[in-house]
């Protein structure tokens, strides 16, 4: 029977007490279970599978495209590549956002509802550490499994189709934009988890943004500059080599990153005041 003095005491910053233990637990929930490969398989098959069909199957769309469309794209191969990239970025962006919202909706609200937060906060764990551990563990997992791995496979498919390495810089920039877009929805969902006590409003607001954002931006154009709603299209345009004005790229990208920081800040402030 060892006394407490026989143990090494946890050595953390005062405001982040309990962070490393919770971070480890959150990481384990991704990497220590089946969850990581199920998500890898799901998103890679969904996004890259559709892309592969576009790239390698006898292509009806290319046959049906008009000469001017093919000419505008820069040839038949470029037209097919453009369609495949559209599937990955324009269709994939919102799909990944929906997947992120579904995966993240329970991160806080689930533990709130089943009483686990109450127990966790009875341990030497600060509320700040709780929120930051959620972000720090889930963001890399989601971004690697949802964006990183499918993007790597997608890059391979594109290079295989063109017979040479696909332009890497523009592709990486587009993936970075998709990453910011996905991160926005992770932080939004986490923040909503601190603001509400059931899943309805979380799903309603977050999915409303994913599915209705494009429509809203269509009606009120300036909204595209201060939201992530146009980012999937911007990513596609960049990776297909289209000329994109800098303000269309950077304003929504910076706004999206700022929103993400604001969401984390609001979650920290709100969680600090909550009672369990």
């Amino acid at each position, binding site marked *: 029977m060892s006394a*407490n003095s026989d*143990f*090494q*005491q946890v050595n953390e910053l*005062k405001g982040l007490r309990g962070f490393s233990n919770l971070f480890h637990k959150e990481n384990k929930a991704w990497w220590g279970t089946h969850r990581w490969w199920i998500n890898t398989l799901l998103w890679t098959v969904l996004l890259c599978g559709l892309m592969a069909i576009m790239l390698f199957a006898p292509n009806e769309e290319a046959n049906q495209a008009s000469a001017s469309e093919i000419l505008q794209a820069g040839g038949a191969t470029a037209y097919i590549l453009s369609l495949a990239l559209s599937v990955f970025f324009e269709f994939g962006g919102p799909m990944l956002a929906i997947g992120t919202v579904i995966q993240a909706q329970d991160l806080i609200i689930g533990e709130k509802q089943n009483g686990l937060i109450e127990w966790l906060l*009875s341990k030497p764990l600060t509320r700040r550490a709780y929120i930051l551990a959620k972000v720090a563990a889930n963001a890399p997992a989601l971004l690697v499994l949802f964006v990183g791995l499918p993007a790597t496979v997608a890059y391979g498919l594109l290079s295989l189709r063109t017979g040479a390495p696909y332009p890497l810089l523009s592709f990486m920039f587009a993936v970075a934009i998709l990453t910011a877009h996905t991160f926005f929805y992770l932080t939004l969902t986490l923040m909503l988890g601190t603001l509400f006590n059931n899943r309805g409003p979380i799903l309603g607001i977050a999915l409303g943004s994913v599915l209705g954002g494009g429509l809203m931006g269509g009606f009120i154009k300036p909204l595209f500059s201060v939201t992530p709603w146009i980012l999937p299209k911007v990513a596609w345009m960049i990776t297909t080599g289209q000329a994109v004005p800098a303000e269309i790229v950077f304003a929504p990208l910076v706004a999206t990153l700022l929103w993400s920081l604001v969401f984390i800040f609001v979650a920290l402030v709100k969680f600090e005041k909550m009672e369990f």
Partner: protein
Amino acid sequence: MLQSTPFVIETHHLCKSYGDVQSLRDVNLTVPRHSIFGFLGPNGAGKTTLMKTLLNLIRPTAGTGTIFGYDIVTESVRIRERVGYLPQQPRFIDQMTARENLHFAARFFFSGPEAKLRARCDEMLELVGLEDKANRPIKGFSGGEKQRLGIALAQVNYPDLLILDEPASALDPLGRQAVLDVMARLRKYTTIFYSTHILDDVQRASDTVAILNRGQLMACGPIEQIMKGGEGVVYSMAIKGNLPVLDTRLKEIPWVTHTSVTQQNGTSVWQVSVSDEGAAEKDLLRTVLADPGVTVAEFSRKKYELEEVFMNIVKGAGNVC
């Protein structure tokens, strides 16, 4: 700051309200070190609210409190480093086994060495008799097993204070006994502050008691003191014979404060409240028997059951605080 009083928990005029509803009203509570402190009250009395307030899960609207001398609001993390808590409905991380849950809980306090951490987890499993279920998924555990695992999780850091919210209420008699046994084993290491509405358990396990009703502390102190009730020392006598003369004679005694009589099967049952316990012990029976027209069938000092005291207090008949 180190504790300089004999009390582990101290609250001063602690209040908590939700709108117009006052869950805690001006609670002044002291919990002595190394006591098994039973915290009693009917459902909705505010027991859980007080426990959560002590752990900063709920913020007080007025008043202050300290545990080990640390403020419950501003120094909560320092307090929680030395406290173990069992919620009313224990929660676990379902994906983990009992051993993994213990290891996870221990990691909030200790970063190593790993071998000692494993040994501590094994020791906790043994303490609550769950060694054979250490590696099983928690979803297969019975209510009693979950409760015992909850206590093990609360005890994993050898806390100086265990706060247990209704640790045995949802259990069958065997499960309850097992939990009370664990509490008795832990007594020499720690102070146990637990809430319950099972009076029998309190009478068996506690040395100090507080009674909370509608957010107000109605009684607190050593259990013997509480068990005396709010009426002081009372003697009970079953008497046959000349009652008016006896009544007059008793009322002439200066330390007799109150008498009452009820009739049971032709016998008069007298309740005599006294202010001088020593004098009553020596002279009360002698005084009664001095009258040759009186026969005493029974004579005893009235013993209260905790339930009687509790009901008196909760129904507003007494306040022993």
